[in-house]
């Protein structure tokens, strides 16, 4: 028996890996026990199930996305710091090569798919229905499924760390390296299944929000009266719908190679690894725009609100968003200029890539013109927005340098690239999502996040960012390649790397300040009693914070862009308050435990595929089909909120 136990521990729990894993195991165990104990002690299990796990309310789903994104930012950031620690000085042995490989793989994968994606989905969920005057998304039940698929996909990737082993072929997972012959063990399978499961959820979210925006807008809100954040979501959804199927196929085929033994991307028996790389980037490039475009939407809202001006060049902003979503589809080969496609192909993709700079530039100028002569208030969302501008401009400029195909032969896969994409991903996506989080936080929770702690976080993070990544441009020119776990002293890279690591730690401190800020503000944050703490312009600010679960007691009829602002200017805000005689019964979707269960079943099937436990995999998939059929036979899935209850809630909020 002990022998069998020993073997189990070595195969699945990676016991032989040493103290790092033991400590993690113990910590994870303690955290889990802690959570279970707390929930039991405070008798919160029922509450958890009723209010959260079974919810189909877009606002709560949004909050769950937000929490998940912040947790994943912590995990991804910890990975980043581990790597920077290893690289602080030449010839370090803090991590060995294998661990370093695993860490950059999980870092990249988590940051893009399990931090950036849920963060944008958090804002989609929280903001879009409120901005367009809807009571929920088009398909609330599907929305819950999307969340739980994301959640269990993320869980699958994260448990690989302590159960079976992490993936280690990079977040791009190129074959033939990621094929079974070169990368045995379950790690790569974890990557493939985690992304596949959460990817299905993302496609569903794309469809859901596109239909929501096209069909659920309040009367009078024509497309050209829509707030720009909603426009950015529309643009992102179009990209999701067009891009994600390519990822689904790339992952599925690689999985077949690894699990069934086919030859899509192997070197032997006629496989072609380049096919994977093409499919991956046909998704991958639009993906980086999928995560940055909603950030653009946030900046548009924030700039207009805090400069107290309407956005400059609304129409050109919309045109820019849409052209970005089209062009982003024709640039994917810039990720492998060096693979020998020939000058004609490279030229096409180089020119297309540079062309994306045009609509992006239009947007930057529009934000600047909006700020010009505005009465700017330097609140936290505005600070992050202002910091975004120079950061993204430099990142964009180095991007155009990388787009020069012949020159890319020098920069390719060097630290120049690392610096470039962190600059656009952090400066664009992370800054944008943080700005959005600060901006809509009062709407979600009814209180503001503390300004003072937020400013500390801001300055640590920003200064840290430049200290960390500017030296990396130079390191790239000096020949340092990405994904190297250490380097010899005589290369002369030591000083710059050390500086870079200091910067990374400064950013880490910034993150700690954000955590402190959230904890502090829960208790002491300024309460939002009006529902309109920033003097906002769009419909969501006409509602109380937090918003009642049916959102609008009476759906407003919109007559202008920035409708709420118009009402305030003209002193007509009372018009939007519900009148008792207008309140009708509201018809809402019922909560359901099935989306959660479906996530669990996908997770079970995923585990089955990861370890080639076929019975488990088949059982999981069968379970999924059964839950889908159960849903098909369900007719009684909606209920009414009666006018009396609505009146009660509204008058308690002082709105009747």
């Amino acid at each position, binding site marked *: 028996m002990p022998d069998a136990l020993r073997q189990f521990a070595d195969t699945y729990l990676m016991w032989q890996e040493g103290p790092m894993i033991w400590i993690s195991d113990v910590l994870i165990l303690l955290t889990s026990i802690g959570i279970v104990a707390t929930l039991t002690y405070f008798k919160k299990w029922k509450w958890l199930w009723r209010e959260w796990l079974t919810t189909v309310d877009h606002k709560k789903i949004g909050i769950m996305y937000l929490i998940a994104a912040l947790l994943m930012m912590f995990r991804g950031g910890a990975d980043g710091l581990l790597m920077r620690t290893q690289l602080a000085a030449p010839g370090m042995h803090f991590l060995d090569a294998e661990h370093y490989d695993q860490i950059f793989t999980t870092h990249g994968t988590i940051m893009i798919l399990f931090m950036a994606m849920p963060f944008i989905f958090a804002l989609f969920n929280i903001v879009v229905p409120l901005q367009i005057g809807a*009571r929920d998304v*088009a*398909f609330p039940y599907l929305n819950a499924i999307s969340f739980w698929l994301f959640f269990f996909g993320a869980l699958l990737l994260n448990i690989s760390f302590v159960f079976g082993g992490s993936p280690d072929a990079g977040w791009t997972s190129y074959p033939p390296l990621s094929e079974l012959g070169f990368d045995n063990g379950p790690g790569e399978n974890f990557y493939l299944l985690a992304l596949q499961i959460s990817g299905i959820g993302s*496609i569903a979210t*794309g*469809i*859901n929000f*596109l*239909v929501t925006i*096209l*069909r*659920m807008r309040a*009367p009078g809100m024509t497309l050209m009266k829509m707030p720009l954040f909603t426009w950015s979501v529309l643009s992102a959804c179009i990209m999701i*719908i*067009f891009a*994600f*199927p*390519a990822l*689904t*196929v*790339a992952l599925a*085929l690689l999985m*077949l*190679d690894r699990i*069934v*033994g*086919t*030859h*899509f991307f*192997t070197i*032997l*028996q*006629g*496989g*072609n690894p380049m*096919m994977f790389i093409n*499919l991956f980037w*046909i998704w991958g490039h639009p993906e980086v725009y999928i995560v940055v475009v909603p950030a653009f939407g946030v900046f548009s809202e924030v700039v207009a609100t805090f400069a107290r001006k309407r956005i400059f060049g609304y129409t050109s902003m919309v045109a820019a968003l849409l052209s970005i979503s089209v062009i982003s589809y024709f640039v994917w080969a810039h990720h492998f200029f060096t693979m020998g496609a020939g000058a004609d192909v490279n030229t096409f993709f180089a020119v297309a890539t540079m062309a994306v700079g045009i609509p992006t530039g239009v947007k930057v100028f529009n934000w600047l013109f909006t700020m010009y002569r505005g009465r700017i208030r330097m609140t936290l969302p505005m600070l992050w927005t202002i910091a975004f501008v120079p950061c993204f401009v430099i990142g964009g400029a180095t991007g155009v340098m990388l787009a020069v195909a012949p020159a890319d032969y020098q920069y390719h896969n060097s630290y120049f690239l690392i610096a470039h994409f962190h600059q656009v991903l952090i400066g664009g996506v992370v800054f944008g999502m943080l700005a959005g989080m600060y901006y809509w936080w009062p709407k979600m929770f009814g209180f503001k996040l503390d300004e003072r702690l937020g400013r500390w976080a801001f300055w640590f993070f920003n200064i840290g960012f430049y200290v960390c990544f500017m030296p990396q441009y130079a390191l790239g020119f000096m020949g340092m390649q990405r994904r190297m776990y250490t380097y010899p002293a005589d290369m002369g890279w030591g000083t710059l790397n050390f500086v870079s690591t200091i910067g990374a730690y400064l950013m880490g401190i910034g993150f700690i300040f954000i955590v402190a800020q959230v904890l502090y503000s829960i208790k002491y944050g300024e309460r939002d009693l009006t529902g309109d703490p920033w003097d906002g312009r769009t419909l969501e600010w006409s509602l109380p914070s937090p918003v009642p679960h049916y959102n609008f007691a009476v759906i407003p009829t919109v007559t202008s862009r920035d409708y709420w602002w118009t009402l305030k200017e003209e002193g007509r805000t009372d018009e939007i308050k519900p009148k008792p005689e207008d309140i*009708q019964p*509201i*018809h809402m979707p019922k909560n359901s435990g099935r989306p959660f269960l479906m996530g669990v079943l996908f997770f079970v099937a995923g585990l089955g595929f990861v370890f080639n436990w076929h019975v488990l995999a088949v059982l999981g998939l069968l379970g999924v*089909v059964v839950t889908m*059929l159960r849903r*098909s*036979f369900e*007719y009684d899935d*909606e209920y009414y909120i009666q006018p009396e209850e609505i009146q009660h809630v509204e008058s308690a909020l002082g709105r009747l």
Partner: protein
Amino acid sequence: MAVVEKALRDAHGHLSGADPAKPLEYQDPNQSLRILGFWLFLATDMLLFGCLFATYLVLRTHTDGGPTAHELFDIPGFTAETFILLTSSFTGGLATLAMRNRNRKQVLAWLTVTILLGLAFVGLEAQEFYKDVLEGATMQRSAFLSAFFTLVGTHGSHVSLGIVWMFSILLQVAKRGLTQVTARKVFIVNLYWHFLDVVWVFIFTVVYLFGVVM
């Protein structure tokens, strides 16, 4: 009947009201919302097949000395599959038509025929695959065969799922009659079925015809 419909119409009053001038499945705005969603899903599924087709075209000639398309494909077999599937698409269309005429019996009958034809199609395809495997043409043999089995097999598993789904809708129509909800379901499952038919037309041309000709 009419009572159920009225109740449903009222129940979904929060989207701008129902419109009896439209076909049954579109009358209730909540149902037409779902139809739009389903069209978008079909777009993603189309792109998924697009990627599989691209992969097949790239790997078509990578036979690694193993069986080629020309040696493998059996003309009577795939012709029969094609006829059966095209016919089933037609009978599926008749089911939609019957639904619009509010003829529940006919809907049930045509759905049954469609399902049977679908089963025949899947049976023939399984037989074809089985024969190929016996001849040593497995998906592990070469990149061409990997791509072939994956593309055609993905279509086949879509059809199989479609059969299960259509059957579940048949049961619902039998139990509940034709309401705005079940009408929408009949409509959507047939959209799906026609879509699979379109994909098959491409498979027939790009995979089988090109395969035996070139």
